[in-house]
């Protein structure tokens, strides 16, 4: 049994062994911050509030929606002066282990507790009733709307995607655009559905290329820039000149492909124009912003204010939960029409589908 090279997992473990010493150093400094949460702002009550956050696989640093949630938490920690505790999911874990994570957060006195990701739905459904005095929130899931101490925070990703789809359809010179999804799940399909609907609203005969980087349960599609680059480059080669990605950390590869092809790309989740390197910025036409950070912050804020959120809260265009960014001035020729669509969606005149038609 001397063939370690073959063991994916073990190689991973060993690699982790060598890397972790460094990584832990970084974690250690984070921990230090926890203890000295700024007390500058926030009420006295806020200081005693402990917020628990349970990430999905990948955790903080996944350059995707976990990070977005982390940003909201950080903002709350500094802005509201709450104490934060973060736990991360592991690969291959069961609902029982997710329950355990939530229970441990609850037992440690955290309130509110925010579960990031729909994978926590089953677990939270079991744990929340056990702790009626604690307020929970879950991102991207609305199956627990009936549980009184759970806030279901979901997003109208299809609405935001509709608008960037409309922008892409205007921006394309050849009538050919693309969509790169990270992992083929119903959630990402919502992005695709909105994008397609938006583009077709502008140009009914537009050609839309669609690809997903990985299939569940392989969630690496959210964090594999190389795959993103390959997929996007393929689309540009086949004639697309605007590609929208909903692929989290893999999006960096999409931008790289756009830059080398001299074409355009559309970002997701955050305003990616702002975070990009100067030479990449021109290719990021716009971004479909999904304010997970706002949702997390809102939840904490509501708890600090003593009126914790419960029930379903949909972050849609109307409340600014999703939006398109205008940081890149190149998008300005197309914003008028997008804003027009936005009004129609808010008014209900346009109903955006949540599942792709194709």
């Amino acid at each position: 049994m001397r063939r370690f090279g073959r063991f994916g997992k073990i190689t991973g473990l060993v690699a982790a062994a060598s890397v972790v010493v460094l990584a832990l150093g970084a974690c250690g400094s984070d921990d230090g911050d926890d203890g000295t949460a700024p007390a500058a702002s926030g009420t006295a009550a806020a200081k005693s509030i402990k917020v628990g956050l349970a990430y999905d696989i990948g955790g903080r640093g996944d350059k995707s929606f976990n990070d977005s949630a982390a940003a909201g938490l950080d903002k709350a920690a500094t802005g509201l002066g709450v104490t934060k505790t973060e736990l991360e999911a592991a690969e291959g874990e069961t609902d029982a282990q997710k329950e355990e994570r939530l229970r441990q957060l609850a037992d440690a006195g955290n309130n509110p507790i925010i579960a990031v990701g729909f994978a926590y739905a089953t677990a939270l459904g079991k744990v929340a009733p056990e702790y009626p005095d604690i307020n929970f929130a879950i991102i991207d899931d609305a199956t627990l709307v009936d549980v009184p101490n759970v806030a279901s925070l979901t997003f109208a990703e299809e609405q935001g995607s509709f608008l960037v789809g409309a922008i892409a359809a205007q921006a394309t010179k050849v009538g050919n655009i693309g969509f790169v999804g990270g992992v083929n799940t119903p959630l990402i399909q919502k992005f695709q559905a909105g994008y397609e609907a938006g583009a077709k609203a502008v140009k009914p005969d537009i050609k839309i290329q669609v690809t997903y980087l990985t299939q569940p349960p392989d969630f690496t599609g959210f964090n594999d820039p190389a795959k993103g680059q390959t997929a996007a480059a393929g689309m540009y080669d086949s004639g697309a000149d605007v590609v929208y990605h909903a692929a989290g950390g893999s999006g960096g590869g999409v931008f790289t492909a756009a830059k080398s092809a001299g074409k355009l790309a559309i970002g997701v989740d955050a305003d990616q124009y702002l975070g990009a390197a100067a030479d990449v910025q021109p290719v990021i036409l716009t971004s479909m912003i999904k304010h997970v950070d706002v949702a997390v912050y809102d939840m904490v804020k509501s708890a600090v204010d003593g009126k914790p959120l419960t029930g379903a809260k949909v972050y849609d265009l109307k409340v600014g939960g999703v939006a398109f960014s205008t940081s890149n001035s190149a998008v300005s020729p197309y914003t008028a029409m997008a804003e027009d669509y936005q009004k129609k969606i808010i008014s209900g005149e346009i109903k955006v589908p949540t599942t792709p038609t194709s």
Partner: protein
Amino acid sequence: MTVPNPTRLLASAGAALAAPLLALVTAVTVTVLVLVGSGSSPLDVLDTMVTYAQRPRSQALMVNSAVTYYFSAVAVAIGFRMNLFNIGVDGQYRLAALLAAAAAAEISLPPVLHVTVVLLIAMGVGASWAGLAALLKVYRGVSEVISTIMLNFIGTALIAYLLTPERLAVRTVGSNNIGTPTIPASGQVPGISLIPDSRLQVYGLAILAVAVGAGYWFLLSRTRFGFDLRAAGASEDAAKASGVRVSRMIIISMLLSGAVAGLVGMPQLLGAAHTFSLDFPAGLGFTGIAIALLGRNHPVGIAIGALLFGFLDNAATSLELRGVSRDIVLVTQGVIVLSVVVAYELVRRVRTRAEQRDVARRLAATTPAPPAPSTPQEVGA
């Protein structure tokens, strides 16, 4: 001439414990070093773990994780004994779980029969998926390492294809998840209240895990088939010369491995989730490889390894609460596996050498004294 040597007796008694002890000491030392290096107090960590281990709920969680790991590790170990590297346990159990879940939701049978049929389906699917790799190896000479890895990918793609609302999955309003319809009560396996004071029950299929372990032991060490399999694993040529049809053994052992792999997802599916959804646990097949190594392919060793991994995996959460990254657990697990493999190899070599010496000593002791004194005279004559 062979006087019992007290030091040697002690040594042979110690030999059995030498490898595990060596491994343990190494693993603990490295883990402590990593903890100190990362600025955590090893004593704190130990304290946290001990406290965690004492909670009934953690014990139940540990056992539940271990049950799942056990199936996975036994599946890998069956391959190992035949010198086959079934890396495809991962794909085998996921595909088996999906199809079994879909079937379980479709059929309606009386309780016990329902579960039995579902288990058989899962084993059948796992065995077929592994069997593909076996056939490729026997008839086309494709290394099972390559083919099982590839079949993992194909399995993933197949699951993604099947797990859509048009095919095997159903949508739940308000959820971004997607899964097979919930299995009716007759197809669910109730838990066992094994751990007192724990509201969390142990998977009912823990009993099946024990049975599989016992069956694995009996098959390998007590049956002719097991002997053939071990012989083929130890030396293909020797097995052939002894009349074992090695290609047949490859197929059978791969089918067996796949069948057990098919059970990996069953405790979770039938005992807890009752549906196969996007977040169904993945990657357990790789954990199984590590545990099979850790347990030296022995049913009891694997059980210990599975419990250890189950404990560490779950304790990671409480460590994280204390500000220790859960990666420390990955490091510990990796170090343990490495230490065990290295320690056993070291001890094996030492023991082989000791055995050879023993044989040589015996040889020297039982044969007549060296050169007869008469020889020189004869030479000179």
